[in-house]
């Protein structure tokens, strides 16, 4: 299999400019800047079927095309490196092992959307990532790959690293913009979408780190080449982050469309100690959980959607038969209750209510109506909120109750408070 995103990961000093240049580094950017028009770049990305790897899977080329070029305001690229989705740890590897691949993607993207400033919003805890990225930016700046007149062309670009401050919601693109502007991370009402009114009120593209890391190789090898690597409508490879009950947890670069079974058993070494697989979260904690029977699904955006889950951020959390699914649901709910930004009422009040209910179910003291009410309460959050966080609560926590109902009922039978 051809490595795209991890092609430099194993090299010594892979984060240094010299290493990157030795391996055809910045040639894609040079090609874009000197031989292609911005429209041709966007066309190539569209051809590649590259989709947003932060979790939403929105076609990247189409997103760039939304930037209104007639708008006289400056345009911005914002790189989402907040990576807060539990079970996800891929962007960290790109920051630390191949920051120049990200920078090259940023240069091409900014050229395509006529932006001269890019902000990289990095998860606050990722101190090493920020240091590595900053060092790479400094190297690129002093060698003419960033700054004024990049690589002898007339194209200027500044890249700014901005640390996050620990809120999960700041990975939501409009909350991230608010945070970047120095405000509390509250998602914005849409429309207008960021492509029209984004950072500081200007047209803005927000892309995930991994998405941008794909851009260089696409320009170098062509959109068609990239499209062929993956599923029909989901080109290329992606980084799957496997954690939980597997023998070899870690980041695996595999083509979109690889089955979940193959990822767990062929690549991540299967479930340890001969235990049985019970459930898998396929795309970060927001993705609805899958049962062991559903792991023949192909890991791409459309296939997972068709079975009622989502590819999300590529964070695969594997649970074996020792896992208490009521506990797992409670942990997910606790996360959502803790991270709900509190702006709109269904999510603010609902996420805490769901967590309290599950706490009762797990720790005892719940009555049958607590379980009976739970799906309704969970269901009332999604679809009624400002951002997708509410949908995530409904989809994800709801899936545990739906698919492992028996375990929830057993909890009540075991520990019901019979007054």
């Amino acid at each position: 299999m051809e490595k795209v995103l991890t092609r430099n990961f194993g090299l010594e000093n892979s984060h240094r400019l010299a290493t990157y240049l030795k391996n055809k580094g910045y040639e894609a950017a040079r090609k874009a800047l000197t031989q292609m028009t911005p429209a041709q770049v966007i066309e190539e990305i569209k051809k590649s079927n590259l989709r947003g790897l932060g979790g939403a899977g929105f076609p990247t080329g189409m997103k760039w095309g939304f930037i209104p070029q007639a708008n006289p305001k400056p345009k911005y690229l914002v790189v989402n490196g907040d990576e807060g989705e539990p079970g996800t740890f891929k962007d960290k590897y790109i920051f630390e092992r191949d920051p120049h691949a990200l920078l090259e993607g940023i240069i091409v993207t900014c050229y395509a959307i006529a932006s001269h400033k890019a902000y990289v919003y990095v998860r606050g805890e990722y101190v090493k990532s920020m240091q590595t990225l900053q060092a790479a930016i400094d190297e690129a700046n002093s060698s003419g790959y960033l700054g004024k007149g990049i690589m002898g062309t007339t194209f200027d670009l500044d890249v700014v690293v901005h640390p996050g401050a620990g809120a999960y919601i700041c990975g939501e693109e409009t909350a991230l913009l608010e945070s970047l502007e120095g405000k509390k991370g509250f998602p914005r009402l849409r429309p207008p979408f960021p492509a029209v009114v984004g950072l500081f009120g200007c047209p803005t593209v927000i892309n995930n780190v991994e998405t941008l890391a794909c851009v260089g190789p696409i320009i170098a090898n062509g959109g068609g080449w990239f499209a062929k690597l993956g599923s029909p409508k989901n080109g290329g490879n992606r980084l799957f982050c496997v954690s939980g009950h597997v023998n070899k947890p870690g980041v695996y670069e595999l083509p979109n469309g690889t089955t979940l079974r193959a990822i767990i058993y062929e690549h991540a070494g299967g479930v340890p100690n001969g235990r049985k697989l019970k459930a898998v979260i396929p795309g970060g904690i927001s993705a609805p959980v899958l049962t062991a029977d559903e792991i023949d699904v192909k890991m791409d955006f459309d296939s997972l959607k068709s079975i009622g889950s989502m590819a999300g951020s590529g964070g695969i959390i594997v649970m074996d038969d020792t896992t208490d699914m009521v506990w797992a649901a409670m942990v997910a709910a606790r996360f959502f209750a803790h991270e709900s930004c509190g702006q709109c009422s269904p999510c603010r009040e609902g996420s805490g209510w769901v967590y309290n209910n599950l706490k009762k179910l797990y720790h005892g003291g719940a009555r049958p109506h607590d379980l009976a009410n739970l799906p309704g309460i969970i269901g009332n959050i999604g679809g009624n909120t400002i951002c997708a966080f509410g949908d995530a609560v409904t989809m994800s926590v709801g899936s545990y109750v739906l698919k492992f109902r028996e375990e929830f009922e057993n909890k009540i039978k075991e520990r019901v408070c019979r007054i």
Partner: protein
Amino acid sequence: MPNLTIDGQKIEVPAGTTILQAAEKLGIEIPRYCYHPALPVAGNCRICMVEVEKQPKLQIACYTPVAAGMVVKTNSPKVLEARKTVLEFLLVNHPLDCPVCDQAGECKLQDYYMEHGQYDSRLASVKVKKEKKAFSIGPTVMLDQERCILCTRCVRFTDHITQTCEFGVFERGDHSQVDVYPGKELDNKYSGNVVDICPVGALTDKDFRFKCRVWYLDHTRSVCPGCSMGCNIDIDWDKSRPHTQKKERVMRLKPRHNPNVNNYWICDSGRYNYHFIDENRILSPQYLDKLVPWSEAVERIAEILQSTKPERIGVLASAQLTNEDLFVIRKLFKETLKAHVDFKAPERPGDSDDFLIKADKNPNTAGALAILGAQADAQTIVQKARQGELDLLYVFGHDLVKLFGEETVAQIARKVKLFVFQGSNINDTCGYAHLNLPGSVYAEKDGTFTNCQQRVQRIRPAFFPLGDSKGDWEIVSLLAGQLGSPLSYKDSQDVFNDIAKTVAGFAGMSYEKISDQGMVLKK
């Protein structure tokens, strides 16, 4: 102008109108907590969600602009269910303290629960405990974070209207709480408005707390007399509960919406300026140190008037009086008696800003100018009185002691034959006046004020004058009768109709036409 259908009714509205505003035009009220017409849209409460055909999700009516051919349903089963749902969420952590909550009776949680909720409770028994309950956040307002539904109206008010930015939302999730920033107090000139816009009992007014249940209140439409802006207000009063503190009749003042004047707001000094209505009032005519009936009081004045020349009569009217009062003063003193009438006192300009607060603290300066004409300062009349050139000095409301000093007023009292003070409240001048006449306050009057924009606005009587006090123009009428030149006005409207006939600026006006929004004087 997009055409759309809301609940089967067709309407055409300008582009950019929201569904909520369009529905309002059709008389359909979509429930709302965070939406306030004078504040930027926050879209956080979610209670205004409506069904829009061809949209998979419900849309918030406060934010969604209308589009041509849009079909909106505001009462479909899906919408009603969503409303119930949102209410239930808002009540998850809301304390059940309605019996001790000041907002009860005008609380949107209560109202919408009765209208759209009424579900069987499935709420958890444990609620999130928040730190600040009955917590003072400034000189005027108390905060209860547990009652707060985080609609952020108060935050947006202080961010966008006063731009004083005292409020913020702190913490996250169901621990979110509205609070003032550390080290800050809610201490601005418009702070009381946050209580009005708070849809629940989270922000309550220290001045009103626990004074009266709102369902005992009667409301009278009036105009604030605190300055020349003439902000529209509601006088909220109660006479059925005489056990309340100090037997006050007025419980509170609330701003009344007038887009041309004060929009939805009033300043704090106007809001809390009502205690004088029931405090320190002159309750009966008093001649020297003896209470006298009205008949004797007017007789005393008539005696002097009949035995003196016009140039020895000085009248100091006031821009605190209504147009009707001033017109009757003009009729009797200027036109019939040809006396020297003036109204301007050398007052120091008061506090002002570029929003609602005006330096001229009189509610009717423009009206006084239109009716009595541009005058010299009161100084002239006072000088004359002091030098013994007047037999009668008739002062309406002005505290001459404050304006000219004790010595001057004492001198006047010695020099003039009769020194009349007519006013609602006792001040230092009363002690020097020979005859004190009890006038009524604005809350007891029917009439009009003309504000600094030349807008003539109605005030209405909330209740009868206290004690033996009477409306100012009625007292002057009484005197006219005594003098044998009766003015036969039956009521204020009658006086006003005469003003409209006589004073050019008021031409074509009537109480009906003035209505609730006022009418601007003609140039």
